[in-house]
């Protein structure tokens, strides 16, 4: 027995020498007496002799950073962001404009004027706060409930409404469902409906930026806490960390994915809890506080540009129904909604902050709300009068050049329409 052990010990020793020769790094210090550090390729951690399972209660929850209280007062003066007056007003006005557009377009869907719509109620602070902290050059990958980001970036109400109507001025040429916006010019990648697909894409785009000389652009990727359950979300976090990408993964945690509440969506410390575990710089913020979101994204951007990917989880509440296809009273109590429309209303918080600073008052509010609303109504009237794109747009852009089989299908349809026009709503579409 003793001999045997001796023999294998010898063999091990020889092996060790071989490994030392092969290894590029020197052997780590092995501290004896309970402080042993393992050197597995997959984990560098201390050895212990006491077995302990860790669970979600082993760590304190990641705290929620906020700047404003519910009365719009700065809680800790050192945290007040230095934002100039013009930018602050622009942020607030974007929120109001968004809110007016949501109300009117939601109602227009109810009346059958457009086929579908989604509102942003309760998440205006997330959207405007984050957009204001970015550079216009930063590339945006969004989910769908981020219209405030798009407006702040400079997409016009006209562009957005034309998209909802799918008329010939819709930049997406009427092919996508309403609310699937996009603008190359403003660095907003056109949205997709399949959830979380944009997440690894955002990471890839960030990697491409990183390789450019003197890169000064980052990528921001918005996604819901529901979408974060998709396999693509995990892939994105892991790729971002291992490939060290200048990307901000921005989770809007609004408590619901359609009817599914967060306690049926995930366990553990939310989406932020996954960040440190996957090697991402992580912060959790109060998404109803536009200034807290601004601060978080401002800092995140600096970290990301150092090629350290960031995860932000912004907490909020989805005040509206999921979409016009949903009636949320089927799965949540009215009292729950009310709480979040009053004290925790992000628009109101920023408004109170501006009023405290003497930058806004009731009169300004009244004038601007009216202006914002009139603009939406007017734009809608115009959008409704515009024809849809020519039907041939249906078969364009599938490929860069139209392949022969598709050309043949186009001709087939052309011939068919010569005879059977009256079976189609041709008057709704642009003519040649």
């Amino acid at each position, binding site marked *: 027995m003793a001999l045997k052990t001796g023999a294998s010990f010898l063999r091990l020793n020889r092996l060790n020498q071989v490994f030392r020769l092969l290894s590029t790094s020197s052997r780590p210090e092995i501290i004896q007496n309970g402080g042993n550090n393992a050197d597995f390729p997959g984990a560098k951690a201390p050895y212990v002799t006491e077995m302990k399972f860790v669970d979600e209660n082993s760590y304190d929850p990641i705290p929620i950073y906020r700047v404003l209280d519910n009365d719009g007062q700065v809680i800790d003066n050192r945290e007040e962001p230095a934002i100039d007056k013009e930018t602050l007003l622009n942020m607030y006005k974007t929120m109001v404009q968004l809110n007016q557009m949501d109300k009117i377009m939601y109602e227009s869907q109810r009346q059958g004027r457009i086929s579908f719509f989604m509102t942003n109620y309760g998440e205006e602070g997330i959207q405007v706060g984050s957009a204001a902290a970015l550079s216009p050059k930063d590339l945006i990958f969004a989910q769908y409930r981020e219209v405030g980001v798009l407006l702040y970036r400079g997409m016009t109400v006209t562009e957005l409404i034309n998209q909802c109507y799918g008329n010939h001025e819709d930049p997406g040429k009427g092919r996508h*469902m309403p609310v699937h916006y996009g603008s190359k010019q403003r660095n907003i990648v056109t949205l997709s409906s399949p*959830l979380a697909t944009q997440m690894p894409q955002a990471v890839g785009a960030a990697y491409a930026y990183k390789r450019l000389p003197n890169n000064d652009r980052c990528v921001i990727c918005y996604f819901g806490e529901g979408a974060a359950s998709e396999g693509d979300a995990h892939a994105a976090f892991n790729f971002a960390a291992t490939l060290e990408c200048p990307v901000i993964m921005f989770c809007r945690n609004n408590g619901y994915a359609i009817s599914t509440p967060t306690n049926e969506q995930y366990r553990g410390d939310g989406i932020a809890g996954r960040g440190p575990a996957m090697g991402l710089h992580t912060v959790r913020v109060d998404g109803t506080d536009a200034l807290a979101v601004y601060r978080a994204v401002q800092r995140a951007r600096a970290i990301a540009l150092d090629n350290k990917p960031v995860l932000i989880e912004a907490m909020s509440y989805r005040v509206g129904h999921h979409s016009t296809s949903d009636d949320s009273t089927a799965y949540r109590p009215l009292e729950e909604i009310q709480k979040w429309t009053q004290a925790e209303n992000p628009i109101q918080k920023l408004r109170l902050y501006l009023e405290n600073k003497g930058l806004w008052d009731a009169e300004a509010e009244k004038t601007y709300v009216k202006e914002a609303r009139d603009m939406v109504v007017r734009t809608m009237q115009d959008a409704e009068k515009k024809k*849809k794109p020519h039907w041939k747009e*249906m078969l364009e852009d599938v490929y860069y050049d139209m392949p022969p089989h*598709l050309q043949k299908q186009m001709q087939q349809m052309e011939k068919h329409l010569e005879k059977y026009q009256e079976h189609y709503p041709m008057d709704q579409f642009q003519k040649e």
Partner: protein
Amino acid sequence: MTTLTKKVLNLSRLLKNVDNHTKRLSSHFNYYPDIEKSIEGETSKMNMMQAINNAMDITLKNDPSAMLFGEDVGFGGVFRCSLGLQEKYGKDRVFNTPLCEQGIAGFGIGLATAGATAIAEIQFADYIFPAFDQLVNEAAKYRYRSGGQFDCGGLTVRAPCGAVGHGGLYHSQSPEAYFAHAAGLKVVVPRGPNAAKGLLLACLQERDPCIFLEPKILYRSAAEDVPVDSFTLPIGKAQVLKEGDAATLIGWGTQVHVLLEVAQMAQEQLGANCEVIDLMSILPWDQDTVFNSVKKTGRCLIAHEAPLTCGFGAELAASIQEECFLQLEAPVRRAAGWDAPFPHVFEPLYLPSRARCLDDLTQLLRY
């Protein structure tokens, strides 16, 4: 929600002056209800959503291993197909999953491997692709690769598919051909409440994993008298819905109703008496019924919403020319969605509408 509602009311007044000529597109077909009874006995009026709910209710009642799950299934599902089932059978049997289709499919395969009956709902067929690997590489090959030791026949994946008038790229697709290409999966598409109940119950009892694609526009479009008791319609069996001798029209799902109307138009306008077949099972498909019909009529038009290239019509056309070559009076024709993604505002021009099918049929008859 009271505050919201009030605001909405005020806004309606505001919007009254806006021109109103962009009403939602109306539906592209007329529904032809089943008249013949599937089985003897008591019936009840059900639309397709209710018939599916009823089939799952029967299964959950009779099969204690059965479970129903997917995104938002707990409160009844976004199309209300699981309405009331969680209250009836408990949260451990009817439940929400996290938002992850590959998880739903893989979890369902696991349930079935362990002997349970798994009814997995994918919220839209357009979102089944994250689950493609689990379905095509796993579910489809489970029995084969284990030499018959393991199987996941207890799994049925339900997914709403097809055009609805305003679904655009990602709420309209018909992915049946992708799954028909994966040997080991059975693929079924009902045309209405009776077919849905009989076929879904058959899938749930089937020894192979099934993909059950529900044309979502049919959920509420019409009600039929559906037997209250449990019954099955055989998988792999087509139905001849109308007999004729001039041409064979083959479709499935919503398109069956388009073809029934086309047959009527052909009778009135062309004096042609066409046979209409609902394929019902995409895989395995009913070769006998199809070949016998085409041998009789000598002409065949296949129509489906999915794009033309590699749509399941291609498989049918190839098999028909192989088997019925001598009896064919004209090449087999296909009317299908164009080879483009499913477009939002162009939907009426994208689908194989009754006008397109009639145009094709006219040319087929004149060939």
